[in-house]
């Protein structure tokens, strides 16, 4: 067992009585059982099939502080650049895992945009109904989070409601005082025919290493529509393990877009459970990383019911000595006839030292389905580059134009223009190009 795992186990003894929800017997049991499972399993190593290409050892060795305190010294000016400035949104801001009412803007009337901590006490029935029902028990990071997490975003949109503006969720970690280990949790419930848009970001302030173990459970009831955008552009020493689990009922439509540009190591475990007929699941993303960065996308679509559609499109651009991993699993259960599943992962290596491991994984138990998948790893096409240059477009701009064009179709489903603009400017910055041309 690693030192960090030992630290976590002993910290739990201290923390447990103070954790939110400690008066709720159900939650107490949930935490204790989860911790037991974590104790039995510990952190994964590269010997685990699911972690074969991603070595956690270097990021687990730091002496992380585990029980973090809030930080009142953070001002709006410090966080402004991490929010969509030109758009009116609800804002939920957490600092070191504690809700900051000072920095947040969650005034609302009809729907619940509040904190996980408050919900633990306020809505014991809802917590009992949903908490831990999306994210699988036995996943070691999920279990660890279940044991410790006592705050995060709680969003419940009641039947037939549409949230009038996007909700931004910002998780900040300040780590001037040394490496920090943070565990936060979302619970997002869209009831029948409800609609909500979410923009989420984890951000570390400071140069010290940080480790965020995050769980997000999303429940989309019949006809609900959820757009969930993840902007991952964290500091160089930050590690993020994002466990997002989406449970969909009949005719619901959920899109999760993951845009990864920063951090030392990002691991996304994104799972969709298609548990109602004619549900639509969309997941797409762009990854642009450089020297010393690793991004690992592990996705699952679990088709459990007939007539569902899933679409998965991940684009990766790798510079310097970076490493990308894509493992996309599509499961079609016997009952899930007429499933239509599409999966595509395309990568461009812009450096000789960059590396990509890509692995589509299809498990199909129904006989009347349509499943397509593909993956490509390549470089920019020399012919195309010459073509652009022969028209007067300089090499650098030509490369940028082609790289951008390669990535851009993964932005097609972004429904918030300001977010799309923001993503475009980050892409241009990461590729070192001027995106004056509007494509």
């Amino acid at each position, binding site marked *: 067992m690693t030192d960090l795992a030992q630290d976590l186990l002993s910290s739990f003894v201290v923390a447990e009585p103070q954790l939110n929800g400690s008066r709720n017997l159900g939650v107490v049991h949930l935490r204790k059982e989860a911790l037991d499972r974590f104790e039995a399993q510990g952190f994964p190593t590269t010997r685990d099939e699911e972690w074969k290409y991603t070595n956690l050892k270097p990021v687990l060795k730091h002496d992380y502080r585990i029980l973090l305190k809030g930080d009142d010294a953070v001002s709006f000016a410090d966080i402004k650049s991490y929010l969509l400035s030109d758009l009116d949104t609800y804002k939920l801001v957490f600092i070191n895992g504690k809700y900051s009412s000072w920095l947040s803007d969650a005034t609302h009337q009809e729907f619940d945009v509040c904190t996980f901590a408050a919900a633990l006490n306020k809505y014991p029935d809802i917590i009992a109904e949903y908490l831990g029902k999306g994210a699988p028990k036995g996943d070691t990071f999920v279990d660890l989070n279940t044991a410790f997490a006592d705050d995060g975003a709680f969003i419940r949109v009641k039947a037939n409601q549409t949230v009038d503006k996007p909700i931004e969720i910002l998780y900040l970690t300040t780590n001037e005082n040394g490496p920090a280990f943070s565990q936060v949790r979302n619970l997002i419930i869209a009831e029948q025919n409800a609609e909500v848009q979410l923009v989420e970001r984890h951000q570390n302030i400071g140069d010290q290493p940080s480790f965020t173990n995050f769980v997000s459970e999303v429940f989309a009831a019949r006809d609900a529509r959820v757009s969930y955008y993840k902007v991952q552009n964290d500091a160089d020493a930050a590690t993020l393990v994002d466990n997002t689990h989406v449970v969909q009922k009949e005719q619901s439509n959920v899109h999760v877009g993951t845009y990864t540009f920063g951090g030392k190591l990002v691991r996304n475990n994104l799972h969709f459970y298609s548990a109602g007929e004619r549900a639509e699941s969309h997941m797409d993303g762009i990854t642009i990383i450089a020297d010393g960065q690793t991004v690992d996308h592990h996705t699952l679509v679990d088709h459990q019911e007939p007539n569902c559609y899933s679409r998965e499109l991940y684009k990766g651009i790798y510079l310097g000595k970076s490493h990308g991993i894509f493992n996309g699993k599509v499961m079609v259960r016997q009952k899930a006839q007429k499933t239509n599943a599409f999966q595509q992962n395309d990568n461009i290596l812009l450096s000789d030292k960059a590396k990509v491991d890509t692995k589509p994984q299809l498990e199909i138990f129904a006989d009347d389905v349509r499943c397509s998948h593909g993956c490509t790893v390549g470089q920019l*096409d*020399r*012919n*195309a580059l*010459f*073509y*652009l*240059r*022969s*028209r*007067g*477009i*300089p*090499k650098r*701009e*030509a490369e940028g*134009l*082609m790289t*951008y*064009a*390669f990535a*851009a*179709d993964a932005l097609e489903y972004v429904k918030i223009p300001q977010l799309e603009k923001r993503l475009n400017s980050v892409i241009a910055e990461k590729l070192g190009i001027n995106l004056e*041309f*509007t*494509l």
Partner: protein
Amino acid sequence: MIKINNLQARVEDKEILKGINLEVNPGEIHAIMGPNGSGKSTLSSVIAGREDYQVTGVSIDFEGENLMDLDPEERAHKGIFLSFQYPVEIPGVTVSNFIKTAINESRKGRGEEPMEAREMLAKMREKTALLEMDKSYLSRSLNEGFSGGEKKRNEIFQMAMLEPKLAILDETDSGLDIDALRIVAGGVNKLRSADNAVVVITHYQRLLDYIKPDFVHVLFNGRIVKSGGPELAHELEEKGYDWIKAENA
């Protein structure tokens, strides 16, 4: 305008061009004909600056400057245009944004201001009309899903927009039916002036019925083995290339 002096090019150990001499003056149309594998496309690529060839001991003088020192984009800024035999498909970049970027980068390269949006739009309208292209072309991804004829028309549209001094048309007639050929050739003819020049590379006389050359050169085995007036093209059409091959065996 352009003076090519003893141009030699090879790919690895294979010699493709073995000493080409060619001079083109403003207002002239030259046709370069020759059988497959004679080096026609290599010649056009080397003039445009493709880097896949080893080019040795030569100069290509373009208006007093040696092109060999310049990148492809710099050559384009000077006014050289190559219409590709196989235009490349670039998904995600629309024709209009591509041409805007090309025009304004070329202007920047020459130290000029970008073109006004209104002027750009008017020009695009004019040139699409010239080539009988539907406006919807402009919002399509560059060459993606274009038919052979549409791709070639799109090449000449770009030529019309960029207004080069020297246009090299590499097998622009291949893949065109007779109507498309007429439109493309008509476009090229309307763009002619006393200040620009055109080099037409083709297998067949057919295109030369529409774009009438002042000079015809026969390229064989990496060398220009015969030059003459338009009558040479007719002779080739009649007799094929065998007599050229026999003469130069």
